C-alpha cells in the first residue's frame, strides 16, 4: 500500500495528495472488510458440506439455506467494497 502510494505520489502532481491518502485508506478498508466474511463463508460452506455429507437426502434444503447464509455474510464484504469505492472515487 505504501509502495503504491509512493509511486503514485511520484507520478501525480502535489494537488492529488488527498486522493492518494484516500486510495490507501480505501485499500485498507476493503482489506479489513474481507477478513470476517472470508472466515464466515468458509466456515458456513464447510459446515454445509459436512451436513450434506452426513445427510445426503437433506442436501436440497441445506443448499438453499447455505446460499441464504452466504448472501447474508457476503453483504458485509460488499459494504466494504462500496466503502472502498466511496473512499477511492468520491
Amino acid at each position, binding site marked *: 500500500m505504501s509502495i503504491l502510494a509512493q509511486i503514485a505520489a511520484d507520478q501525480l502532481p502535489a494537488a492529488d495528495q488527498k486522493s492518494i491518502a484516500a486510495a490507501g485508506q480505501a485499500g485498507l478498508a476493503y482489506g479489513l472488510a474481507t477478513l470476517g466474511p472470508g472466515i464466515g463463508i468458509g466456515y458456513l460452506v464447510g459446515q454445509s458440506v459436512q451436513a450434506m455429507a452426513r445427510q445426503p437426502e437433506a442436501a436440497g434444503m441445506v443448499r438453499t439455506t447455505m446460499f441464504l447464509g452466504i448472501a447474508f455474510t457476503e453483504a458485509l464484504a460488499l459494504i466494504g467494497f*462500496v466503502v472502498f*469505492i*466511496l473512499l477511492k*472515487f*468520491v
Partner: protein
Amino acid sequence: MLALITVLAETASTDVANATKEVKNPILPTLNEMFWALVVFVLLWALMKYVLLPPIMKTFQERADKVRDDLEAAEAAETARVTKLEQYEAELAGARAEAVALIEQARSEGDAERRTQITAAEAEVAAAKAEAAAEIAQAKAAARAELSGSIADIAVGAAEAVVQKPLDRAAQGQLVEDYVNRAGSQN
C-alpha cells in the same frame, strides 16, 4: 401527478448535477436510469402476470392432470386385474372342490360296490358251505345207516353160523345197533 414527478425530477437532477460538478459519485443511483428500470420492470411484471406466465401454468396444470389421470387409470386397471384374478382363483378353487367331490363320490361308490360284492360272495360261500355240510352230514348218516345194517347182518349171520340156531333177530339187531353206535361215537 406527472407534473409532480417532473418537478421532483428537476430538483433531484439539479442536485445531482450540482453534486457531480465537484465529485463524481459512482454509487448513487441516477434518476433517468431509475425511471427506465421502474418502467421496464413494471411492464415486465404486468406482462408476466397477464400474458406470459398463464400459458406456462396451464401447461403445468394440464401435465399434472394428465399424470394424475394416467395414474388413476393405471390404478383402476390394477384393481380390475386384481378382481379378475380373484375371480379366476375362486373359479379355480370351485373346480378343484368339484373334482375332489367327484373323486370322493367315485371312491365311496366303489367302496359300496365292493362291499356288496364281498357280502354277496360271502353269502354264496356260506350257502355253499352249508350245502356241503348238509351233504356231508347226509352222506355220513346214510353211510352210517348202511354200515350199521350190513354189519348187523354180517354179525347176525356169523353168530347164526357159530351157534347154528336161529337167534332172535330183533334182539340181536338191537344189540348190534348199540354196539355200532358206541363204536361210531368213539371215532
